């Protein structure tokens, strides 16, 4: 019998002695093994390390991570599904000196809001979009997104995503890297300690490029979703590396050489 999923915080193992300073509470309703809290942790650490705590406005999309829009201790605007890059554009145009980021999932950015992120990148808006990509609609309970990899089982691709029937996944970071307005594009992951450290550096570089006024930046972060992948919690990191990680390959896609 596999362990229950969607459990309470008390079921989780404490992996760090403290919480990030920019978190108002450690209470959340995300599942054990979820990668999103890890990604949000390094996002908050990056804001603090760059001295931007009182200079930051975030824009949250709609997904499991939306639970954090009310507990991050930074000013936040809650946007509609897919629309965060446009909302961030309005914020940045009125507050050009602020660090402005979006927090979106793959369903939010790659499905519902693909044109929004592409146009925002092409415009070279000085904002940073953070994509939490787990290849699945986690909040609805595990359904196929435009980033779901071939062979991946979801609730509406029960035999696995089949290119003949369901089409191919979109590698959105690769797409955005081709746009002139995008100056820094990278894809990281939180499936292993080293990957977390590298991904945090990516966020720092993206924010630095924004603060330098260089243009649009995107950091895609692959996150575990054992609930939506229908696998035991402990197998999440390995599954990520072997499936999503093989299609959405990690690394800096644009902007590294200029540093």
């Amino acid at each position: 019998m596999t362990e229950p999923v969607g459990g309470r915080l008390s079921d989780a193992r404490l992996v760090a002695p403290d919480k990030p300073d920019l978190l108002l509470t450690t209470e959340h309703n995300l599942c054990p093994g979820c990668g999103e809290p890890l990604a949000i942790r390094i996002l908050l650490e990056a804001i603090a390390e760059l001295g931007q705590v009182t200079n930051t406005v975030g824009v949250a999309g709609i997904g499991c991570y939306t639970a954090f829009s009310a507990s991050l201790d930074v000013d936040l605007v809650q946007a509609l599904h897919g629309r965060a890059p446009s909302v961030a554009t309005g914020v940045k145009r009125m507050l050009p000196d602020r660090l402005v980021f979006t927090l979106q999932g793959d369903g939010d950015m790659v499905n519902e809001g693909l044109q929004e992120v592409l146009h925002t990148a092409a415009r070279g808006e000085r904002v940073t979009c953070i994509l939490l990509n787990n290849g699945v609609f986690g909040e609805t309970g595990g359904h196929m997104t435009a980033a779901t990899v071939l062979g991946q089982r979801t609730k509406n691709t029960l035999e696995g995503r089949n290119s003949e029937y369901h089409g191919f996944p979109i590698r959105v970071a690769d797409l955005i890297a081709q746009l002139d307005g995008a100056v820094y594009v990278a894809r990281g992951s939180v499936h292993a300690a080293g990957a977390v450290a590298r991904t945090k550096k990516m966020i720092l570089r993206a924010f630095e490029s924004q603060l330098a006024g260089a243009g649009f930046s995107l950091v895609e972060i692959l996150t575990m979703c054992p609930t939506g992948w229908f696998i035991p919690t402990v197998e999440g990191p390995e599954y990520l590396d072997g499936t999503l990680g093989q299609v959405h390959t990690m690394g800096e896609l644009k902007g590294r050489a200029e540093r």
Partner: protein
Amino acid sequence: MTELMEGSEAMASAAISAGCRFFAGYPMTPFTELLEHFAKRLPPAGGVCVNAESELEAVGMAWGALATGARAATGSTGQGLSLMQESFSEITLAELPLVIFNMARGQGDYFQSTRGGGHGDYRHVVLAPIDLAEAVELVQLAFHLADVWRNPVLIHGDYLLAHLAESVSVEPIDFGPPPAKGWAVDGELGGTGLSRLVSPLGLGKHRTGGSDGGGSDGPGIEAHLQAVAAKLERITMAEARCETRYCDDASVVIAAFGVPAKFVRYVVEQLRAEGQSVGFVRPITLWPFPTEAVAAACAGARTVAVFEINAGQMIDDVRLAVLGQAPVVGIGGISTDHSGFGVGALLDVELIRSRIEAVLSAAEVPA
């Protein structure tokens, strides 16, 4: 200073005069010139006009600008506004003071403006100017009301309002200091525990040991939705505006709105001068509908007639106001030019006169 000015230019100028500093839009006839004038006039005023890649993105950008406390607007014609409805619903629930311009094709967007095509319990204040002079006032009023109520306000215009040039003076109206916007995000309260959240869910931030014991400092979604609904009820009581003429002793009352009402009012004045027992009532706010004023205007009427350039939309609200006290008939209809954007044959003083005379005759009103 009075100048001969196209409607779109006058409205953009009035908006900037009212403090609008952000506009985003997507071209669509007959709204396009409004976007052109914002694009030209906002940057010198220290503002920003973004040529959005779609209506969905235009309204999203306005949403972001509003969240910072700026006065911001977007717009389109009815078809483009259809695309924005999801955001209109949620911006209302987020209590953001958006101003929306609808330069409509005909008057077929009455339902869209007053009922909305979006989801949930939301309403916009809808102002329908009869001409450019009134538009210059109502555009400024729109930004004021939006801030006071923290609710979207829509300017309902049309091809004529957007394109006709009239002699007009854009004088700033002093509504007093705008309300403080302590809810707006500026990034400066990060890390203090007092950082803000602008959300249609109305949630305060979650904190360990929050006031509801469950980690939340917000009122909860149900309470938030109830609070917005209660506010909309207060707007209904406070903001209805209406023009009435000759209704005290009128046997037939004609209701109309927007620029076509100017044609109707002219005909009614002609008929009055000829001794006909006809009155005129014009909702200036389409929402809240001036139900009491329309009911009072029609209290002595044998027949109420509604002239609108659509298949019959405002007539529903007139019937709800009159509540069966008199028959309410439609004397307008669908009418457009060959392009579908502009003015059709129905907007003609002689034609409107003949339709009103037919109502007078059917009501057996002695001349």
